[in-house]
């Protein structure tokens, strides 16, 4: 029996009077990969931001390893060390080289030795095929390269949980693959991850469990085969239909991946 890493109970998030997340309950086990999908504005990204305490929550509890995450808590930065987050718009630090982007937090937050961090950073960069870019600045990289650096930057902190917030949404289609491949590799290593994405085929390949969010609630939670083949709710069916195109010339149906 694997242990629970993240536990969310009765989470409520409001922006003023707008209810964004309504009574979310979720347990994530160590090594589990959860993919969150749903129409835009359903609260997927907000859910990730709440887990990282980037958004204050109005009700319920979120705990990692049994420790509550709370934006006022003093140990917040200790908790955040354990949660790596990768954003849609990469958000590398433009004034630092790739290597320094990766090394900043391990050096300043974890106070690790420079030699050791540098070695690890270079190894991780090599793994995503970017070792020779270590001295480059973010502006010299393509979108896909920036996003791979952002993933390495998160990994170098040795997080227990990785959050991916639509990490391919801002990328040109031909760069999506290189980033998704990196995430697939991480899944293969047994990392615990929560991924928000619109890439349905990728979701199917990487997920242990799909969460379908709509209107701020979890509508379905099921293994990918089950969710994609036999969605239980009408809303999920409707949502999945938006990714399917009826062929106009032949009787065959084609499933096409949404590209942006």
């Amino acid at each position, binding site marked *: 029996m694997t242990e629970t890493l993240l536990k969310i109970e009765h989470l409520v998030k409001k922006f003023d009077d707008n209810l964004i997340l309504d009574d979310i309950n979720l347990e994530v086990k160590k090594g589990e990969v959860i993919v969150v999908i749903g129409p835009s504005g359903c609260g997927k990204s907000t859910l990730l931001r709440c887990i990282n305490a980037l958004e204050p929550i109005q009700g319920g509890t979120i705990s990692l390893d049994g420790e509550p995450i709370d934006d006022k808590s003093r140990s917040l930065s200790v908790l*955040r060390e354990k949660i*790596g987050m990768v*954003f849609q718009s990469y*958000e*590398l630090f433009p004034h630092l080289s790739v290597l320094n982007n990766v090394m*900043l937090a391990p050096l*300043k937050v974890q106070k690790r030795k420079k030699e050791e961090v540098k070695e690890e950073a270079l190894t991780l960069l090599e793994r995503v095929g970017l070792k020779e870019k270590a001295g480059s600045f973010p502006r010299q990289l393509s979108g896909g390269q920036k996003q791979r650096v952002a993933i390495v930057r998160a990994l170098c902190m040795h997080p227990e949980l990785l959050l991916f917030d639509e990490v391919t949404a801002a990328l040109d289609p031909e760069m999506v693959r290189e980033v998704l491949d990196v995430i697939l590799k991480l899944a293969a290593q047994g990392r615990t991850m929560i991924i928000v994405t619109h890439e349905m085929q990728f979701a199917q390949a990487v997920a242990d469990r799909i969460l379908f969010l709509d209107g701020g609630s979890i509508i379905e939670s099921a293994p990918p085969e089950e969710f994609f083949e036999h969605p239980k709710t009408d809303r999920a069916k409707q949502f999945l239909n938006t990714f399917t195109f009826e062929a106009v010339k032949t009787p065959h149906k084609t499933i096409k991946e949404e590209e942006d």
Partner: protein
Amino acid sequence: MPDLGLEVLLKGQNMVRLLEGLWIALRISLTAVVISIPAGILLGAMMTRKNRVVRAVLRLYLEIIRIMPQMVLLFIVFFGTTRAFGWDLSGETASILVFSLWGTAEMSDLVRGALISIPVHQYESGEALGLRRVQVYRYIIIPQTFRRLVPLSINLITRMIKTTSLILMIGVVEVLKVAQQIIEANRMASPNAAFGVYLAVFLLYFIACWPISMFAKYLEKRWR
């Protein structure tokens, strides 16, 4: 070849006097710069705060200083305060005061602009990595703000140096006033002195400002 009146520059102490005038202009503007930059940084940071009253007051200050011609400000501070409050400010003190008020206002707006131009995601990605608030500012926000600010504030410094040409109006004998005195004194002997002397003044301003603006260009190239 027309008589450009250059020989006047070589007469007596004329060139030295011009240089002394330039020094006064630089002393006034650079003293004001030294006051304006920290004060502007402070006010600029306050302008990004949420407190509406503070923001409104600072905005008002900025707008008033911007709308009013520097010459009018100089007159108010130099002549106005003597009558109204009985202050006996020297021309130089009044100039430093006005230039500091003006420089602080302009600088605060530059700082505000640079601060709000840093996307909120930069703060968030720093925090998401576990950096504390202070560390986010120290390693991420301030270095980026600084880079945006340096070329802009250097531009402000050269504007302040050039604007000292107004302070002869309140009786400060700076480089332009010295030039006028030299021309005046040599009206009979070399009536064409105006060209040569003003040319020298032009070159002196150029020599003072050009290296500063080249430095700004260099930094811009290095950081962009």
